[in-house]
């Protein structure tokens, strides 16, 4: 599926989710920044500053395109118009990677701008696999699929998330994006072990690792309820889970995600440096 003209994959270095307010900082003093991730939907306009900035950034850094609107887990068909827009973006930008989420966000032509959960059943697996194949065929390359943050469970689920993702990767040839903050959030919320999740995760299929911050709340029974907000620094237990993961997986491209209450560039640069230190521990 890879064609010879495709840009090389993401480097096993630390990147950051791109925010337009950091454009000048990134162009003038990127520090240890190894690559950038953009949200696909923000670059699907016809022109203007967003696309001009992206062209400049792409000349200097490997770019990962991360979609938040395909609704891969949707019960309905994928949105053909959106798929066409994605194909156009991937064609002209030729990014190092394209990734999306194991989630749904559109139903009956309405888009909810959130990543909604799926029951893990053979029926869901068939549907998601069909959609992943359709995306990969449309854009002519492998995609990565990201594990979600879970707040609740479906009584109808018959598979573990790790089995679901492993089977999906085997069937479709897609890669996986492992968000270790999501692993920590889900494990806390569902009272499971984050290390056991990593132990059972098909790490060979991982093309990228995400790190982000979360909020803390509790449910009506007093049990902890962590919310994946991307609005804070990565917490120590998540850094520890990253070390645990990298020790098993070896070096991978790492990404700091900070999408709400976005701080000044130096705060993000510190997070990038900390991720780099985690990588250096496993670099031979």
């Amino acid at each position: 599926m890879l064609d010879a003209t495709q840009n090389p994959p993401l480097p096993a270095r630390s990147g950051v989710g791109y925010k337009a307010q950091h454009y000048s900082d990134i162009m003038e003093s990127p520090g240890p920044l190894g690559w950038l991730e953009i949200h696909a939907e923000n670059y699907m306009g016809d022109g203007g500053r967003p696309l001009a900035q992206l062209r400049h950034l792409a000349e200097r850094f490997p770019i990962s395109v991360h979609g938040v609107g395909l609704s891969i887990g949707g019960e309905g068909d994928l949105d053909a118009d959106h798929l066409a827009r994605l194909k156009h973006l991937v064609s002209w930008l030729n990014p190092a990677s394209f990734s999306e989420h194991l989630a749904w966000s559109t139903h009956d032509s309405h888009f909810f701008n959130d990543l909604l959960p799926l029951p893990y059943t053979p029926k869901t697996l068939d549907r998601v696999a069909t959609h992943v194949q359709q995306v990969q065929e449309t854009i002519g390359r492998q995609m990565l699929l990201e594990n979600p943050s879970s707040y609740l469970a479906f009584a109808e689920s018959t598979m573990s998330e790790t089995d679901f993702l492993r089977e999906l990767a085997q069937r479709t040839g897609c890669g996986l994006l492992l968000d270790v903050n999501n692993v920590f959030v889900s494990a806390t919320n569902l009272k499971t072990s984050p290390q056991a999740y990593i132990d059972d995760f098909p790490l060979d299929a991982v093309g990228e690792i995400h790190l982000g911050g979360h909020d803390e709340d509790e449910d009506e029974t007093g049990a902890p309820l962590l919310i994946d907000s991307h609005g804070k620094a990565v917490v120590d237990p998540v850094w520890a889970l990253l070390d645990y993961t990298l020790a098993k997986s070896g070096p991978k491209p790492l990404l700091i995600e900070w999408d709400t209450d976005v701080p000044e560039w130096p705060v993000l640069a510190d997070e990038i440096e900390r991720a780099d230190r985690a990588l250096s521990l496993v670099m031979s």
Partner: protein
Amino acid sequence: MTVTQTAFKAAMLDPAAAVPTGIVNPDGAAASKRFDVYRNNVAVSLSDALEAAFPVVRKLLGDEFFRAMAGVFLRKHPPKSPLMMFYGDAMPQFLGRFEPTKKFGYLPDIAKVELAIRHAYHAADATSADAQAFGTLAPDALMGTKLRLAPATQTVTSDYPIHAIYRANTQTDAPKPVMQAEAVLITRAGFDPEIHHINAAAATCIEALMKGQSLGQAMAIADDTLDLGAVLGLLLAQGAVTEIY
């Protein structure tokens, strides 16, 4: 026990609805507060998008009123596409019909201006035409000439002083709006859209040009308050003319 996405969506958009059976916490019990995370995420993310999209409407209504209005809007008009940059196309019509806002007749037109500015921001880039081309035209050819305008170019016409209201809410030294009909032209020479006050005749003329009509046809449609020289001067100065043919 299967939770369909239809059932999930209905319960998610209605805070008073029961959580679908089959959604559980790790102990297998009902999980209403956990389900509320999605209710909250969706409402907050769509409200935030509307706040960012309509800053002047928000300023006119006040934060609290806007947030309450947005809560009604987002349930009645969820986005129809994942392109959040264009969310809110239904806002002008909604504000004109929504009971608490329909008495503010200017609000739908202010929302139209804010939508037009966003569309201009994301419109395709364009290279402006050389204004010298006008100089080489034979005098009798001028009225048959057509102009292609940059994709960012838009007009909004109103019975209200929309330009003055917009300025008064975006600039510190702007004069107080006086009740009169106003129209605006939105252009984008570089990356930042600009808003210009024009009269209704100029708006009629520019809209005719955008439809591919000649200068003569556009002039004939507009009333005699049209100053064609001023319209052409403004369009050319803003780099809004991409071809003269």
